[in-house]
């Protein structure tokens, strides 16, 4: 989850809103599962293969959607995922179809090993993104978030960067998928390509704080905690758990649009400077970006 949210946020940092993250997630999951079942390769190799598949899918998406921005890109990613889901449903000979596919019992690993692998994976993906953001890439991405054509003038090749960013995000999301698959040992098109995963990653990021490094991590913990609490304690009436979940989500967005991390940073800042600053720095920095991004549409005919 942390991995997925980090991956999503990384992509969003360039203004690419993905609603199809489960495409990478699912593709990674299927790649590792099917390879293991057919050729009994090792866990490590399967992770490697899945990351490659995810990265390839990410790159393909970026190249294919070259000209799309904002909402159009988001809708294209939905289409990408749906097409993959239908393919997985309709090719039962390969994927097991809607009845799903189980990981070979012999290939299963201990829970402890997977826990450690997950932690290593999470740390590695956070570090990778952190390091990448330290490089020149960061400025290119900032520039693209604000204005792609301006970025182009600065000598940034948007397509190249987009492809790179999507590939990294795709690989990281695939990693998350693999870990989850090894953990649950079962996969079906519904699980692999559900929009729920993509949205969950977003919710985590938003709740934690978008475009920040720490945000997705905080968000992932909060969202899972919340979902667990509602699922376990609200079983009296059918539907309540998700109802409450929705309510919390809506109030978060309305009252804490900068996320928990944003709010914390603001509070800390205002405390540090003596509560004198009127405009909230993080929110503002963000909203000015948004104003410029909001009204954009693809070139009209």
């Amino acid at each position: 989850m942390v991995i997925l949210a980090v991956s999503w946020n990384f992509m969003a940092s360039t203004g690419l809103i993905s609603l199809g993250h489960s495409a990478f997630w699912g593709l990674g999951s299927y790649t590792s599962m099917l390879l293991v079942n057919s050729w009994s390769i090792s866990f490590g190799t399967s992770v490697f293969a899945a990351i490659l598949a995810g990265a390839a899918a990410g790159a393909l998406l970026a190249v294919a959607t070259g000209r799309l921005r904002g909402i159009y890109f988001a809708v294209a990613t939905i289409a990408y995922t749906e097409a993959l889901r239908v393919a997985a449903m309709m090719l039962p000979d390969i994927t097991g179809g809607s009845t799903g596919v189980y990981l070979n019992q012999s290939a299963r690993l201990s829970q402890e090993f997977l826990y450690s692998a997950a932690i290593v994976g999470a740390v590695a993906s956070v570090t990778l993104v952190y390091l990448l953001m330290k490089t020149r890439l960061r400025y290119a991405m900032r520039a693209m978030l604000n204005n792609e054509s301006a970025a182009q003038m600065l000598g940034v090749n948007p397509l190249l960067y987009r492809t790179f960013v999507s590939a990294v995000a795709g690989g990281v999301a695939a990693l998350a998928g693999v870990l989850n698959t090894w953990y649950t040992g079962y996969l079906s098109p519904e699980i692999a390509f559900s929009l729920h995963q993509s949205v969950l990653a977003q919710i985590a990021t938003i709740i934690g704080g978008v475009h920040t490094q720490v945000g997705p991590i905080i968000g992932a913990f909060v969202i899972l905690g919340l979902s667990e609490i509602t699922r376990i304690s609200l079983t009296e009436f059918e539907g309540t758990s998700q109802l409450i979940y929705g309510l919390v989500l809506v109030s978060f967005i309305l009252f804490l649009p900068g996320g928990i991390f944003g709010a914390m940073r603001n509070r800390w800042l205002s405390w540090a400077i003596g509560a004198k600053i009127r405009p909230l720095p993080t929110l503002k920095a963000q909203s000015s970006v948004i104003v410029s991004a909001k009204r954009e549409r693809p070139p009209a005919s």
Partner: protein
Amino acid sequence: MKVKLRACIAGALALSTAAGAANAADTIQIGAPLELSGRFVAFGAAGKRGAEMALETFKGEVNGKKVEFLFRDIQSDPQAAVASINELTEQTKVKYIFGPIASVMFAAVIPAWRQQKPVWIGHGSVTTRTEEEVGGERRFFHTYPYAYHYHQTMSAGLKSIIGSGKKIVIVYSDDAYGRTSLPFARQFYKEAGFEIAGEELVRQGAADYNPILTKIRRLRPEALVTLVQTSDLVTLAKQIKIAGINIPYLVDGLDVLLEEWQKAAGDAQEGWIGLSGYIHGMERPASKDRPDIFPSLSDWEKRFRDKYQVEPTYLDAGAYSAASLLLMALEKAGDDPDKVVEELEKLNTETLVGPGRFTKTSTGGTVHQAFESLMIAQRQNGKSIILYPPEVKTGEIKARTE
């Protein structure tokens, strides 16, 4: 990753709630991961009603020991279902599991169940993937017919009612139910001597079946066998009616005998043939050895209606019966999973939905199978007329004419 986090959080939570609620020592806890929201909420809700009511029959205890169902909302999401099983078995350490119901959820939790293997009353899942994966497990008790039970009974029944040699077309959906059913439907109908003139795939949730119906019309089948979800059968039945295709016999599984399907399908339900272990409005006498638990069907239905203000369904009656079987075994064995397994194996009582006795399935895939006996009925003038087996027959089959 996600699941792991979930498990940690859930563990912490479960500890805090469980500590106050009950000492594991004097309470028997039964984990009940059910679809209490999301797409399959109707399944989960029925499962929960059944379990609750069974517990009420036992006054909340067996042999003076308190029993409780730990309900978990798996939100019709396989990931959440896995997380729930993990939380229940790894953290809360329940020894018994009741649920989930939908095939997809069921399939997803199998690997997670394998970690600890609590005694599992599996009241749900018609797909044979389940049978292949866990059917042979000694701690797994399946209390719901598999898809092939439907086709086995239906093909045999139809053969005895309308005779074999008829031309049929099979419509199956691309979901788990359709996909796993198809080979069995093919096999059993062939064995019963029917000619399969065509097989058509439909998409789950589709709005338009006209292209399929146009193809079927040209095949001129004498019977149409559908392997689709209930909601799709509403749309499909309506469109068949609208298209005015002259097919004498329309055949489906359980859906036809569900009250919600009947209401939704309206006039389009006329003539449909389905099957179930429980047909609304039928009578079944009280169990001889345990009338306290399994009274006559009408008495039980009255109790159910008084409690929930809704009409019971096959799932309600089945879940009640399945949960009761578990409680009966607990009554005899005490809180020891191995003994409970032995007692479950020994059970032999009449229930609301047929004989409560665990036997091997005909395929041999599942060692503990109950409630696989089904009755065939046809919707005639808004009523279910039982056609098969002959001993419970209440009327004759009618061919549709358009």
